[in-house]
């Protein structure tokens, strides 16, 4: 007889977080994304507390934290009754079903992807967290394997990792990518059409499909990028509501818990949210850095011995530099900032350009670009013909009339450019810690970090697709114009 095992604690925690998301944002797709992103932080805090309370407490603490977040979102949000509407109760049931089915199917068919040493480290850490026998990591492993994914996986049953969890992140990332289109256009038909076009591409591209089960943080990074890009679009268009701001902070908290180098990978988003909020909402602008630093320090100060740079102090120095840097940036913008600085894309592109110069000087750029080209166009990175598709779509979109406001589209593209360059810069640090005199940022093969991390930038593909397809269906169609800039000057909606 086959026993069907569903992880009750994980399922219940996710359902509560989804309900909290529904109460906060009212949309099922973004609520799903929020539930998964919040689960990153909830399980991380649960594991940190288990260092005091004992390993048996991890699941209970995760449940308590999830229920607290649900209560908090119901108390804070004016339209809390929305959760109990029939439609949303149906979404709650559907979400619970998806979470359960993912676990059952993965277990029944023994589906897994832990063949790489990264995955080995992660599931070994998870098992150690669960058993209370964790040995603090040091060196490159501490830098690269991070904390939140092993923490989440430590919620598995009886020494297992959490079966069927990664596909939930993969699905959330796809849905959140479609959600960006809805945020940018306000047009449901456009959002559905673009998602429908993206899905066959995403599922048939081996380099992307692998992230369905791959035991790594890439699909989580894709999800967070999609969520933050959606909120960045909203911030540029009309300003963030309180619920949106909480969504941004939840995402940045997850970034802090995930991996140390993700502070740099997502620094482009941090920079953007500081730019557009420093003058009107300095506390929120500072909070975007603060939550990342606190989350990072939470685990680097407890489960890490030392880092490849600055030794035992590295865990503290870098986050504190980020905190001080964020504070200085907010001060500069408040003191000297103007609309040109905070509402245009050029600060993002200038910073990206500066970082690109550093990357060119510090890394073996030509060899890396050759490897990258082989990965992208000659099959080694398992991208098939998808990069050709991206180039065709992006090129063709320039022959179509502009749909989105130019300033907003450029700002979002600027975030993308800065994110890419900062990631390449982090690869320089990666190579430098390995003792290479002129490190590269790419090597041939799917296993190359950059090749796997490219999935992070999938959400940016919606920008050329929106322009290429335009908008159709007059109802709900929003052609964003220069008014998007003016809207930001209006008071920020609270609630």
């Amino acid at each position, binding site marked *: 007889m086959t026993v069907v095992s569903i992880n009750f604690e994980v399922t219940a925690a996710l359902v509560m977080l989804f309900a909290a998301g529904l109460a906060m944002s009212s949309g099922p797709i973004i609520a799903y994304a929020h539930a998964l992103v919040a689960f990153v932080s909830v399980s991380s805090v649960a594991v940190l507390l288990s260092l005091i309370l004992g390993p048996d407490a991890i699941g209970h603490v995760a449940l308590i934290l999830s229920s607290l977040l649900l209560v908090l979102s119901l108390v804070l949000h004016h339209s809390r009754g929305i959760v109990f509407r029939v439609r949303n109760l149906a979404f709650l049931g559907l979400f619970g079903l998806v979470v359960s089915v993912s676990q059952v199917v993965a277990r029944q068919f*023994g589906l897994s992807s832990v*063949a790489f040493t990264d995955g080995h480290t992660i599931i070994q850490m998870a098992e150690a967290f669960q058993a209370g026998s964790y040995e603090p990591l040091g060196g490159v492993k501490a830098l690269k394997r991070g904390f939140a994914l092993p923490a989440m996986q430590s919620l*598995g049953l009886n020494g297992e*990792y959490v079966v069927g969890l990664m596909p939930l992140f993969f699905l959330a990332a796809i849905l959140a990518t479609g959600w960006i289109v809805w945020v940018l256009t306000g047009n449901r038909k456009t959002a559905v059409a673009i998602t429908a076009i993206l899905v066959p*591409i995403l*599922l048939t591209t*081996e380099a992307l499909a692998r992230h369905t089960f791959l035991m790594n943080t890439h699909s989580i990074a894709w999800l967070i990028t999609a969520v933050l890009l959606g909120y960045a679009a909203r911030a540029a268009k009309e300003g963030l509501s309180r619920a949106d701001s909480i969504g941004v902070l939840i995402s940045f908290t997850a970034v802090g818990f995930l991996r140390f180098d993700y502070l740099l990978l997502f620094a482009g988003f941090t920079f953007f949210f500081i730019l557009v909020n420093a003058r009107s909402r300095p506390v929120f602008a500072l909070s975007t850095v603060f939550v990342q630093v606190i989350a990072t320090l939470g685990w680097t100060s407890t489960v890490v011995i030392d880092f490849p740079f600055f030794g035992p102090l590295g865990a503290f120095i870098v986050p504190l530099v980020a905190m001080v840097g964020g504070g200085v940036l907010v001060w500069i913008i408040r003191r000297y900032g103007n609309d040109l600085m905070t509402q245009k894309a050029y600060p993002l592109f200038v910073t990206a350009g500066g970082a690109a110069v550093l990357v060119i000087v510090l890394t073996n750029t030509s060899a890396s670009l050759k490897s990258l080209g082989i990965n992208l166009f000659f099959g080694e990175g398992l991208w*098939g013909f998808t990069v050709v598709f991206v180039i065709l779509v992006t090129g063709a979109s320039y022959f179509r009339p502009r749909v989105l406001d130019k300033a907003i589209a450029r700002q979002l593209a600027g975030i993308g450019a800065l994110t890419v360059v900062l990631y390449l810069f982090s690869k320089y640090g990666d190579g430098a810690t390995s003792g290479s005199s002129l490190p590269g940022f790419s090597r041939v093969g799917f296993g190359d970090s950059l090749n796997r991390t490219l999935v992070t930038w999938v959400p940016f593909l919606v920008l050329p*697709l929106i322009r290429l*397809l335009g908008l159709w269906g007059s109802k709900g169609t929003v052609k964003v114009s220069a008014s998007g800039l003016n809207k930001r000057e209006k008071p920020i909606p609270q609630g």
Partner: protein
Amino acid sequence: MRKWMSLALTSVLALLVGTANMTFAIRDGTLTTAIPSFKASAIIPNRLWMEAPMQVLHTFMGANGSMLFVGQPASGGLSFLDRLRFKLGDEQVDSSKSPIDLRRIFGDEDLAMLSEFVQTLSYRSLQPCPHNPAADCVIAVGWNRERTKEVDMRWLATRISEDTYLIVDDSIVRVE
């Protein structure tokens, strides 16, 4: 009208690219199926992810035929044979026999068949050549899918041309 035309054309392009992608790469590395345990303590020592050998062999190829990310990365990693030993276990790698150049044993027809196998059925990876790190070689991994998870499956690592190495199970190439 143009919007619908754009949608139709982009959809067709997406479907074409999707179809082409499906035929582009062998997809055995996407995930492992029928894994009997989800515990790290069972998976890692028993190498339960071994259903897709490509997963094991493909990712870790480094310069000079070394294996990346084993021990101290700065030390240069492991040799090609040690790489196989690390992933497959000491007892699974037999290097006692002298290397054989298949080009001297096989005729042109057999070699052409192996080349075709490399092109159509193996998983190929462009890596620095084990015999000359300055040059690039194709390292192809191929196996009989019907033998997946078969106990005592034997593998042979060989070089079939100047720039092509082939790692196959013994149902494809057997040397007596």
